[in-house]
């Protein structure tokens, strides 16, 4: 690798170190240790950050890379950490699909440029067999705020765009002890960026492509005096690859952080999402008139105080949405609450985390055509939780935690977990964890006739176990895990209107193994392969038996700029549209191509990055969902400009 590319990697690594140290401080509330961090998805000689060109570091910066588990607040959890830049460069159409490309035990079906909502919606995340459609068993947490729709209990997959994402942490096996309801199969923790040094940067990303797709993103970061500012707007419109597959996506985000003192900060965030599209319907019977219109607005505050070995934090939040559908359906929902946490390091071997949380979920539903207004009741819960991380001997962490949750609809719920992590030597880590998780029924499942409801539903519970090992060295990244998920009282819909029912089902056990291999910086190339196999038992609907993702990246500094590209692909096997292995559908296999050239002018402080994304490179006919074929060969041409 030429010196320039090495410098580029060094520049890219700088914020990693900063972030990792912040994570350590966040997790331990005390003096940070050396930063053991790795990124899933390989560490290719990818182009450096698309922000403002940073003056070249005098020397490449070395970082110690020990394992991929460090960025989690629970050292024993099995996680994947994905850089925001990797998501921004991904050829996959959505952020969730880009995340699934990096971790084979995460499955996200698609149907085209947009996932949509309601009937025909895709984008439900499954992690190790739990989750799916609707995706209420995997919790998305954005900047400390649980993000889901109040009535239906799932995140909106089209509401996440990576322009400000610093990184995404996927906690496999869930963690209801730390995150509460819905963190049953997994947690997707999204952390957005701040600028680390004084100054400002502006990035514009414009792209046009197949199906009359136009995409524009403008984002900016600034650090001025005691203020940190971050904001951006993303707009995308497309006709889609068939009637009804198009739509509009408008997402605006703004955040401000004020540092009263070096120890005390107040952060305000606001995000607005507008989605407009349709359910194209099965390809044989299109329904382009089945439109939807979604507005969502999320606001939060975060007060942080750090001093020595102690950190205190408080985060009130409110998430409000209005969803309207073609058939007259309209819902106004809200999820509001607050989290207060304290983290303290006692001595050199014990980290304590204690917290309390309150959440209220509610809303109203009506039909603008028929005037019907089903009666719904909101749900409130309060909880107290704690986690202890003990390091009795060097390189060994023991983690235990518990949460007592009091729900207005389900009474007291006890959640707990325990795990261990052992790093016998640098570069190798072994981990295991057991976690008791739960999900409360959604308002829809309890009260709304879509197609039926059952107010007597019990909360879903699961006991998730995993054990695995990971090795990371300069050119090699290996990891593997075995997992077992035992779930009771899963909520399932059976039949169709007027004989449909929604009930708790008995007992489900899912076994699986997951692994990944990364060959990094072998000359100009890197290769990353991740695979997953699982036995999901009877509930096979959109719960694939096997999945494999690969990414081959090649890049080098040409002296005048960085030229890089990647070929990535996904294979999904054992897909069914029904439970009990009914309605099998063909295996999914598709490949994408990404090419980009990055030129930076340090004198002008600008960067130019033209890129080309080619999706479905082999023009294969495939579908994740029966009747919803994915687009054929299509392309997007774009230009990023950084100032």
């Amino acid at each position, binding site marked *: 690798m030429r010196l320039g590319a090495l410098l580029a990697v060094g520049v890219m690594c700088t914020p990693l170190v900063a972030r990792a140290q912040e994570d350590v401080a966040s997790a331990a509330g005390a003096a940070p240790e050396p930063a053991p961090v790795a990124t899933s998805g390989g560490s290719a000689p990818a182009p450096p950050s698309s922000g403002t060109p940073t003056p070249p570091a005098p020397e490449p910066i070395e970082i110690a890379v020990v394992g991929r588990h460090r960025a989690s607040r629970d050292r024993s959890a099995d996680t994947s950490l994905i850089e925001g830049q990797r998501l921004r460069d991904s050829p996959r159409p959505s952020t969730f699909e880009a995340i699934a490309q990096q971790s084979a035990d995460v499955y996200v079906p698609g149907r085209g440029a947009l996932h949509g909502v309601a009937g025909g919606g895709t984008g439900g995340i499954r992690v190790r067999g739990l989750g799916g459609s609707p995706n209420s068993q995997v919790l998305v947490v954005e900047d400390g705020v649980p993000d889901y729709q109040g009535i239906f209990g799932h995140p909106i997959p089209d509401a996440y765009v990576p322009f400000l994402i610093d990184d995404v942490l996927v906690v496999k096996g869930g963690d209801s002890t730390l995150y509460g309801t819905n963190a049953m199969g997994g947690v997707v923790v999204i952390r957005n960026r701040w600028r680390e040094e004084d100054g400002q940067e502006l990035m514009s990303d414009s792209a046009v492509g*197949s199906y009359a797709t136009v995409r524009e993103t403008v984002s900016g970061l600034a650090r001025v005096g005691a203020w940190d500012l971050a904001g951006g707007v993303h707009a995308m419109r497309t006709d889609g690859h068939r009637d009804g597959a198009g739509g509009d996506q408008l997402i605006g985000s703004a955040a401000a952080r004020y540092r009263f003192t070096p120890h005390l900060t107040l952060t305000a965030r606001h995000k607005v999402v507008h989605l407009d599209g349709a*359910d194209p319907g*099965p*390809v044989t019977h299109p329904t382009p008139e089945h439109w939807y219109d979604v507005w969502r607005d999320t606001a939060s505050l975060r007060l942080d105080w750090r001093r020595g070995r102690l950190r205190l934090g408080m985060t009130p939040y409110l998430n409000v949405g209005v969803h309207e559908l073609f058939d007259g359906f309209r819902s106004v929902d809200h999820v509001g609450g607050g989290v207060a946490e304290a983290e303290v390091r006692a001595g050199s071997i014990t980290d304590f985390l204690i917290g309390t949380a309150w959440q209220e979920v509610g809303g109203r539903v009506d039909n603008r055509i028929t005037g019907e207004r089903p009666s719904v009741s909101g749900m409130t819960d309060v909880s107290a939780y704690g986690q202890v991380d003990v390091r009795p001997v060097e390189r060994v962490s023991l983690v235990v935690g518990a949460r007592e949750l009091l729900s207005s609809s389900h009474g007291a719920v006890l959640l707990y977990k325990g795990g261990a992590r052992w790093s016998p030597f640098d570069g190798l880590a072994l981990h295991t964890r057991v976690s008791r998780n739960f999900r409360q029924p959604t308002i829809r499942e309890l009260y709304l006739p879509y197609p039926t409801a059952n107010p007597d539903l019990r909360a879903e519970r699961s006991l998730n176990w995993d054990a695995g090992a990971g090795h990371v060295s300069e050119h090699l990244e290996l990891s593997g895990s075995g997992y077992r998920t035992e779930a009771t009282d899963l909520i399932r819909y059976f039949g169709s209107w007027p004989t449909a029912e929604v009930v708790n089902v008995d007992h489900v056990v899912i076994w699986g193994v997951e692994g990944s291999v990364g060959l990094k910086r072998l000359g100009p190339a890197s290769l990353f392969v991740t695979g997953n196999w699982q036995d999901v038992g009877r509930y096979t609907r959109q719960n694939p038996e096997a999945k494999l993702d690969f990414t081959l990246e090649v890049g080098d500094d040409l002296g005048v700029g960085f030229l890089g590209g990647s070929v990535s692909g996904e294979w999904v096997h054992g897909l069914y549209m029904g439970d009990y292995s009914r309605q099998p559908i063909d295996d999914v296999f598709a490949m994408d191509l990404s090419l980009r050239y990055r030129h930076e002018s340090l004198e002008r402080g600008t960067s130019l990055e033209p890129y080309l994304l080619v999706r479905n490179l082999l023009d294969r006919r495939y579908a994740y969902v029966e009747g919803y074929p994915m687009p*054929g060969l299509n392309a997007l041409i774009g230009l990023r400009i950084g100032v």
Partner: protein
Amino acid sequence: MRPVGLVPCLAMAGCDLAYPEVVVTNQTAETVELRRVSFNGCAWEGVLAFGDSTSPGRCLPGEDRVHLQRLDTAAYCRDQVEDGTIEDLCPCEGNFGGAGPLEGLTNAEPRWFNYQTVSTWTVRYGECYHFEIALSELEQDFSTPGPYGH
């Protein structure tokens, strides 16, 4: 990037313009109307009278049957005259007259039934197809795809 490099890129970006174009013509019978005509991702609005054609639609490459809803206006007319729901003489053959509408037992709403072509057609990139729908080519369509999602 040199301008010559843009050509293949733009060509790829517009590759959906090479999707097969499909036109469907109602050649069933003078008294049969078609609506909700669809083929492999294309959906056409409006009602096709005998001899009418859809506008050209860019459909996905691949194979499918033409799906549609059909109304036999002559049969509808006869039924309404039998039930006496139409006051004036019906211009249909065979005016049976009627005893007047039987409350609750008659339905003046025309009923459209789901049909599909017996044959499956394959369409490919860059080509234009013209499908003429004949009565002998139709069979009832009992496939009722359920919605995916929630």
